[in-house]
C-alpha cells in the first residue's frame, strides 16, 4: 500500500517522498501540502537525508589557537588568582589589558630586535602596577 511506503522515514526525505507521490499520481498537484511551495522556493542548503555523511565526517576538529595564547598561558601560570572574567561587561579583563600593554611595549622599540620576551614581560608588569592595576 502506498500509504505505508510513504510513511517510512528512511526511504527518502520528505520532499522526495511527496514529489514521488505527485509524480506517481497518488497525490494531485492541487493537494500538495502547505510547506511544499515554500520548500521549492528556498530549499534547505543540504537535503535532509538521514544516511548522508556530511562534510568533515571523521576528520579531527581543528583546534583554535591564537598567537597571544602563549602569552596568556604565561600570564596565568604566574598570576593564578586573577578576578573572574565577566563576559558581558564591556570592561576588558586583566589578561586582555596585560596583552594590550605587552603589544604597546613591543611596538615601542621596533628597531631593537633582540628584546627578550622575559624583559617585555617584566616591563609590562611594571607598567600595569604603575597604572594602579594590582597583579596577584
Amino acid at each position, binding site marked *: 500500500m502506498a500509504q505505508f511506503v510513504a510513511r517510512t522515514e528512511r526511504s527518502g526525505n520528505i520532499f522526495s517522498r511527496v514529489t514521488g507521490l505527485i509524480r506517481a499520481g497518488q497525490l494531485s*498537484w*492541487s*493537494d*500538495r501540502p502547505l510547506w511544499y*511551495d515554500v520548500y521549492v522556493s528556498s530549499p534547505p542548503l543540504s537535503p535532509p537525508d538521514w544516511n548522508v555523511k556530511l562534510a568533515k565526517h571523521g576528520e579531527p576538529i581543528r583546534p583554535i589557537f591564537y598567537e597571544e595564547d602563549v602569552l596568556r598561558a604565561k600570564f596565568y601560570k604566574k598570576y593564578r588568582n586573577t578576578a573572574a572574567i565577566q563576559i558581558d561587561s564591556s570592561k576588558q579583563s586583566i589578561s586582555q589589558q596585560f596583552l594590550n600593554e605587552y603589544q604597546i611595549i613591543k611596538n615601542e622599540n621596533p628597531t631593537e630586535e633582540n628584546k627578550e620576551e622575559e624583559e617585555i614581560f617584566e616591563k609590562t608588569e611594571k607598567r600595569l602596577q604603575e597604572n594602579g592595576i594590582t597583579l596577584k
Partner: protein
Amino acid sequence: MIRFISRRSIGTTMQAASMASPMSSNSDIDSSSVRKIGKALETYLKHSKQNIAMMEKHRSEFETGKRHLAKMMSLDIHELDQKAIDRAIEYLFPSGLTDPNARPVMRPPDEILPRFQRFEFDEEGRPEGSRFFTLNPKIYGLLSEIGMKTQSVMKFYDEHVGSRNVNKNDLDVANLSGSQWITHEKMKKKLHEKFSNEMYAQILIAFENLAQLQGSSIEHKFLMEYREPLTASTGSKLFGPSIPTVQICAETNRRYAEVVTHCKDTRTTVRVFDAGKGKFNIDGIDLHDFRHLQSREILLAPFIVSSTLGRFDVNATSVSISAETPEAPNRIQKTSIGGQSSLPRAVRHGTSLCIAALNPECTEKLRLSGLLTLDPRKKERSKVNQPGARAKWIWKRR
C-alpha cells in the same frame, strides 16, 4: 462547540495564479467556490453530522415516550416535568439497586448520551489551546502555572529578603492549615479533563513544593483554589436538611430560621423566632392542645437539650406527602395529617435545626443527641398474600 466552517468562497484548485500580478481578477472566486477541506476535517464533519442526526432521533423518541408515560400515569402532558417523570419511573420500575446511578432513568438524551464534541477548533481546523498536542492540555497547563509561580516566588524571595519595603507576612510560607488538597475526582471535574493517578501524584508534588517555599504566601489565593476544608471529606454533613441560614423578619425585626423537613408521611415547614415566649403554633394548635403527653415531650425535647426553654417561638404548617403527588390514586385530600407522633417528630426535627441556626453554641449538643438527623423511615408497603408489610397469615404446621 464546533463553529462551522464559513462557506467563504475560496479560489480554484489551480495553484499557479500569482497574488500580486495585475492579471489576477476576483470575478471567478465566487463562481467556483470549491472548498478543499483536509481529509481529517472531512471525516470529523461526517461523524459530527451523524451524531447530530442520532441526537435528533433520540430527542423525538424521548418526546413520544413522555406522551406515553403521561397517558400511563393518567396525567396531563404539561404536568409531566422531570420530577414527575422520575417519580413515575420509580413507581413503574422499582429497583432494589443500591447505587442511585444504576437505577433506571428517563431523561432527555442531551443529559445521558456521551457528548461527541471532544475538542474545539476554529474555521481553518486549528485546534484551540496552545498545549493541544500534549494530549492533556489543562493538566499540563496547571503544571506549567505551578512551575512558573514557583520560579516567581523564589525570585521574589531572593529579591526582597532583608529589604524593608516589603510586607513581612509576604515572606512567610503559605498557611494552608485546616485544608487539604482536593481529591483526584474533584480535580478532574474542576479541570474538565481526565488524567491518570501518576499525573495526580505529580501535581501534588508540584503543589507541595510550591507551598513549602519561603515567600509562598503571595500565592496563597492560587493555592487555596485547589484546597478543600478538612472536614469536607470526614462527613460531618448532616443526613437530611442542613442547618438553615438566619433571616430577619421585616415587620417585627426578630431573627428567625425556617426549614422544611418531613417524618413518615408528614412534611412540615417550621419557623422558629428568636426573642419569643415559648409559644407554639402548629397548624393552629398550641402545645397544650396536643392530647398525648408523648407528643408534648417530643415537641419540647430540643429546648430541653439546648436549655433554651421559653426563648423561642415556633410556627409550623404541615401537609401530607402522599396527598401532594399528582399521581395519587385517590385525589381526595386527607384532612388529618399524620398520626400521633409523626407531626410532632417532624416539627421537632425542624425546631432543632432552627435552634442550631439561631444559637450555634448548642449545635454540638443537639447533634450528639441525634435531634439534627432526619429519620428516613417510611411506612413499608404491604405485600400481596400477607395482611400487612411483615405480618403473615396464621401458619399451621399441618
